[in-house]
């Protein structure tokens, strides 16, 4: 009986620490940096995906229904990614990384929001123009990523 209780407690501890490992905020500078990289990669992915959908919709290769859904998804994903990153405290030496990435994230969310509004208002011909900011944003994120990776070494 006692052994069983100990085993049960051990299993619960392992599960709890596994969950904690998955959700804990980064504590070291290195962990923060790798989370920053992941965030930049995710944001860039969302920007490029939305851009791709807009271009495909403009070229008529995808349906407007599907493009609407994809743009909504990209917006909510970017919002979630940005706000998750925002919640983590940066180590002092990486404060500038946070500022840079947060502002790029905010800009991306703003652009995607305008895109979503445009699709809901059925201003299909305006989409490419609204989405024009996505390419430069993605490139900026690529720059951030390169800088981050260089800093890691």
């Amino acid at each position, binding site marked *: 009986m006692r052994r069983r209780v100990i085993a049960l407690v051990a299993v619960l501890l392992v599960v709890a620490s596994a969950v904690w490992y998955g959700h804990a905020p980064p504590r070291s500078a290195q962990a923060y940096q790798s989370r920053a990289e992941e965030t930049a990669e995710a944001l860039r992915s969302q920007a490029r995906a939305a851009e791709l959908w807009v271009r495909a919709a403009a070229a008529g290769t995808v349906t407007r229904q599907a493009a609407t859904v*994809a743009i909504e998804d990209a917006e909510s994903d970017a919002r979630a990614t940005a706000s998750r990153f925002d919640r983590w405290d940066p180590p002092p030496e990486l404060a500038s990384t946070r500022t840079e990435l947060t502002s790029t994230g905010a800009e991306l969310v703003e652009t995607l929001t305008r895109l979503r509004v445009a699709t809901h208002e059925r201003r299909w011909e305006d989409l490419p123009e609204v989405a024009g900011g996505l390419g430069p944003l993605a490139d900026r994120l690529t720059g951030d990523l390169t800088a981050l990776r260089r800093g890691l070494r």
Partner: protein
Amino acid sequence: MFAFTLGTLSAIGGFIDIGDLVADALVGARFGLALAWVTVVSVIGIACYAEMSARITVQTRRPAFDLIRSRLGPGYALVGLVGAFAVTGLLVMAELSGVALALQLATSVHYLLWVPVVAAVVLLLIWVLPFETMERIYGLLGLTMLVFVVAVWHLDPDWPRLWSSATTPVPPASESWPAYLFFVVTLIGAQMTPYEMFFFSSGAVESRWGPKDLTEMRVNVLVGFPLGGLLAIAIQAVAFLVFFDAGIQVEHLAETVLPVGLALGKLGLAIALLGVFAATFGATLETLFSTGYQIAQYFGWSYGKVQPPAQAARFTTVVVGLLLLSTALAMTTLDPITVTIFAVVFSATVLPLTFLPVLLVGNDRQVMGQLANGRLSNTLGTVTLAISTVAALAALPLLVLTRGGSS
């Protein structure tokens, strides 16, 4: 001859479900074809066990899993049962959401509004439609997913690059080894789906297969599953071609079908969506039933689609109960894509518990007589069992270590 091709075709469509649609696109976008070998291994493994369990069914006129309990004993069989129940609970939720997401992409009406509608239709179909009709319709409609294969050509790929990616089974520069291994396990879980075997052999009992159907069954398995695998690799390939260089990670079902739209236009996209709809719908029914079968077989209840529901009351209750549970789970707004990844990883952890008893029964000469396993079945079966055991042990540590594959 007609049933021949029909069964084969539905095996192709039946191979793909929400797990494949998500995992293949995700893997293709991040790793190119560097994991295509996993699909090849999985196809060989699942074909070997599907053939074995169908052979057992033909010989004993009982589904292979009827015999699990007498091989593993009630204790281990119960562990397997509880594990499978949890996994299929998640999977049904994911498949239901998959159907709803396909409908959302077609109509841009939010998927949560579709979930209860889909669940109601599933319930109705369970009640009225005979087993074989159900399997065939969705299998055949699922064939429309072959547009993914066509799309590969229309994207005008750099073939040498595809080939070199497929023959370089290491993570690309941008990815780490743990992430690579995590997706090896994910693909194994997504493609060696035990419910396919459950369904295959239980269905064989319900359609009263005899030794004369053995050839038909083998053709279904040996042609259908490899073609299903080809489809899976095509999904990886189109995701690679469209997303890899842009650094786009697949986070939604929309991105699975986008390359088809880019390659073949609106019509292609619509066909792909129809395929996704059919595959996930069919898989919803299959996963539901296989769980019902498994529980009924463990306790020895009467079960099945042949009997009227009142003669298999406990079976019907379990199936309907699980459907309601999964619908409720889907309505909690948990992200269906994340749930799918978790479900296929958990599915990999209980895989050996379904393979081992099948392998043991296949070798029992007192039960199998002339139809006992040959050397080929045993070699492939043992190798597959070993692979699945390693994958099962590695699955959860990798899930934690890579934070669900995100790093």
